[in-house]
């Protein structure tokens, strides 16, 4: 087992970054080198990848070293990484020499134009307790829902490899990243230097401990939220029962937010089968002095949840079965019926707070920060109206990235509309089914007339009240989902 990487030669790391960029060590470049395959994390795919990589290509050598965890001849590695000398990388714990071959001690994954060093995958059930994860589905989901705007101070709680902090460093003047795991601290510092982010400050300590009494404009956190009986991995297991860890974290966020500041945290929580998924989260954010947007990705019952989190133990005889039994017994003891996974977005605001809960159609999110800000803005606007007043007088415009999908059938030479759906091509990719006349009303909402006028045009004489009553609940929902933007409302922040 090697030591953690040390960023004590910034010049060499800058050169490594430049060299990897030159080699096209990017998602796209690597996919091309692999003949169109996207790289999986599955070690069983390695033999195939090795056959796909062109013999003697410097990019191929870098992929072998940093992604496939395969040894490379010294000469090949030298050529691939020049002008960075191998000894300098060995000195920082990035590479280790073994006879006339070298191996990487860390995995380096390209993420957009960032490079993220993390621990390598150690096989089923393997990995050290302080294993440091790089990018994952959850890290990408958190990055996608983060409201990106220029701010002064940002905080990444439980930074791990530092991937969120690196993203924050692009739009925050100063980023503080905390972690309780010394190995994660080392990786986060290393990655800050590797990516030339001088504005990331890494502090050791559990959760908010290193930032007691401090407030931030923006907070993100991808914490160990898994609801498990284990306390094996720092990155996964909090060691606290049920969802109390996630609850505690959410409850402590507001005290570190400045007025108007946004916090984004991934959580898992438990709820009864016949209870709305948002019910427990509403309790966590009640009285928090924050508005809250609750987003749910998935809900699983305990068996499938346990199977998903222990999937890689299938490689070890008996281990998968043992883990399933252990997890299921734990879930039974706590009376857990359903486990949901999602994100909580908070915005600190004086006055009466609101809570909005939305289901996400997919975990594969596009960058959604702008969409989420729009949702906060439209909800503020709805709250600013008195009950049942002002909505009809509001001038709305349809979001630019909307798409209508109309499904027709042709019967006897006539088109019959079967269904009309409106969806957003970007952001959270919401989708809503429309009532027959709603589409005609939306078509008139081009920013030149009030909602009431549009309904009036579609309704014709004498039918206004009836149609308005029919359509308004759906239209309010479209406003809440960010499809319709009130032109008279000011966006927040």
């Amino acid at each position, binding site marked *: 087992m090697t030591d953690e990487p040390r960023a004590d030669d910034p010049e060499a790391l800058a050169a490594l970054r430049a060299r990897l960029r030159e080699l096209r060590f990017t998602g796209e470049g690597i996919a091309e080198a692999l003949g169109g395959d996207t790289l999986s994390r599955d070690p*069983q795919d390695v033999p195939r990848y090795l056959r796909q990589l062109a013999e003697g290509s410097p990019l191929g050598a870098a992929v072998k070293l940093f992604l496939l965890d395969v040894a490379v001849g010294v000469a090949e590695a030298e050529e691939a990484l020049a002008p960075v000398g191998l000894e300098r990388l060995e000195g920082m714990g990035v590479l280790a020499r073994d006879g006339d071959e070298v191996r990487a001690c860390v995995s380096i994954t390209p993420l957009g134009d960032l490079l993220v060093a993390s621990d390598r995958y150690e096989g089923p059930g393997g990995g050290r307790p302080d294993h440091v994860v790089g990018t994952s589905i959850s890290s990408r989901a958190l990055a996608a829902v983060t409201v990106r705007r220029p701010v002064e101070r940002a905080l990444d709680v439980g930074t791990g490899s530092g991937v969120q902090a690196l993203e924050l460093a692009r739009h925050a003047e100063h980023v503080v990243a905390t972690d309780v795991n010394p190995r994660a601290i080392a990786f986060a510092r290393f990655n800050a230097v590797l990516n030339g982010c001088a504005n990331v400050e890494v502090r050791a300590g559990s959760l908010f401990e290193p930032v007691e009494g401090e407030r931030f404009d923006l907070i993100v956190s991808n914490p160990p939220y898994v609801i498990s009986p284990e306390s094996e991995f720092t990155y996964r297991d909090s060691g606290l029962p049920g969802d109390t860890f996630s609850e505690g974290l959410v409850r402590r966020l507001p005290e570190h937010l400045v007025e108007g500041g946004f916090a984004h945290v991934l959580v898992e929580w438990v709820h009864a089968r016949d209870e709305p998924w948002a019910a427990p989260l509403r309790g966590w954010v009640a009285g928090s002095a924050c508005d809250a947007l609750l987003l749910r990705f998935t809900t699983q019952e305990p068996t499938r949840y346990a199977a998903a989190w222990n999937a890689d133990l299938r490689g070890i005889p008996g281990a998968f079965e043992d883990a399933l039994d252990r997890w299921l017994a734990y879930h039974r003891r706590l009376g857990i019926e359903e486990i949901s996974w999602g994100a909580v977005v908070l915005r600190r605001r004086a006055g009466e707070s609101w809570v909005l809960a939305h289901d996400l159609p997919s975990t594969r999110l596009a960058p959604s920060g702008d969409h989420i800000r729009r949702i906060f803005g439209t909800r503020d606007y709805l709250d600013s109206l008195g009950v049942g007043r002002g909505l009809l007088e509001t001038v709305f415009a349809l979001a630019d990235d909307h798409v209508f*999908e109309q499904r027709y059938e042709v019967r006897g030479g006539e088109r019959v509309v079967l269904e009309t759906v409106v969806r957003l091509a970007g952001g959270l990719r919401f989708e809503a089914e429309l009532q027959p006349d709603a589409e005609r009303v939306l078509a008139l909402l081009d920013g030149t007339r009030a909602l009431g006028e549009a309904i009036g045009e579609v309704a014709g004489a004498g039918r206004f009240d009836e149609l308005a009553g029919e359509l308004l609940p759906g239209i309010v929902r479209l406003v809440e989902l960010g499809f319709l933007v009130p032109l008279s409302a000011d966006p927040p922040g």
Partner: protein
Amino acid sequence: MLRAVLAGAGYDSPGIKRALGSDGPFERDDNLPLYLRVLLPRGRLPALIRLFFLGVPVAAEEAAAALAPLSLQRLEALGLIAPREGGIGATVDLTPTDELLLAYDRAERGVEEREHVMGISPATKLLAYLTIRRPVETALDLGSGSGVHSILAAKHARSVVAADVNPRALEFTAFNALLNGFENVECRLGDLFEPVEGERFDLVVCNPPYVVSPESALVYRDSGVPGDAFCEGLVRRMPEFLAEGGLAHVLVSWVHGRDDDWSARPRAWVAGNGCDALLLRFRTHEPLAYAAGSNARLRRRDADEFGRVVDRWTAYYDELGIEAISWGAIVLRRRRGENWVWAHSPSAERLGPASGHVQRLVDAQDRLRALGDDRALLDAALALVPGHRLDQTVVLRGGDEEVEASLLRLLDGLRFQVQVDGPTTRVLSLLDGERTLRDVLEEASALEPGLTPEAALGGIRQLVELGFLE
């Protein structure tokens, strides 16, 4: 009686899905521990699922109760169950499909065994879906395996011959035919056409060992003949076993150069054979991906051996100069006169029962060839077939509708989908099956400036060929 017992316990596709809390597909290798924990501990259906679906032993009393009034002795004599550690175990999988109950070799035990009898694979489903189902006298299932195609044919053929070189496969075919209550399936042992020399059939179905590989280890996968020569031989001999008007459906692989027209080689196989031919290509792989995909099971078990096998396969392709391997189906219809060949490349992903659709593809070729000139289509009264959808994607900009795309798709069969332009959409919306295409085009061009009959005709012809219009 076994069928009645299983049906009585609710051992069918929906019942198993409910009991396992999943809509499938079921990955029994990966998820067995999970399924065992989801399943209720007691009851007839859970016991039967353990035995015949999951392949797990069940205590003798429990098995006896679940299978009553059938006795364990009778089932053991049939070779379906055997004493195992922990009670009674099944020797075969019993998998319900939508219509059938099929027995075949347990997957985890014998896939690498030479005479393994395969269960239902995506290829099995594909062939079952593509086969044109109409009442016929005689049918032939060539390489019957577990017998699924024989049984499906037995529903609409007076008599079915199931031929296989693997005696074990024929035992399964015979067993499955009886299990599903069909007595019109006759099993014959022998290699390919050998057991039916000199006979002709109204219907032939064939899911042969078409994988292009250097191996000859597995009867169900490897033909042992170099390259695609096995498939070629099979297709070339097919017509002599078809009665006039008879239809053959066969799954095939073939090889070609990277930049070649994929259809060139199968066209050569069917040229001058006295049959009309539909050539359907579902997928083309480059050699490395093909070798890796065909050995996916090995990859999971032994990565090093997987690497060696992939090397052996790719070396074999190199040696034969193979740059691409395509996979698809050929449908032949024996017909006197001038024959046609139509090649198309549908997706194999979204497929449903397609008998009616494939029949329409054949009818469309007959019709278009009979018309000769496309302009003759103008006198036809066309309409979109039932089960179509026209999906329009519309964006509103400054109060104007902008149609970004129109997708015409079929809900059933081969589930074709094609992009159609605005003017064509207009024409399609007016077709009512009574007015002639000429009349409709006239009306549409009044609404769509720039629409000319000549331009529209090509698109309409294509939609007739694809089975959208009738």
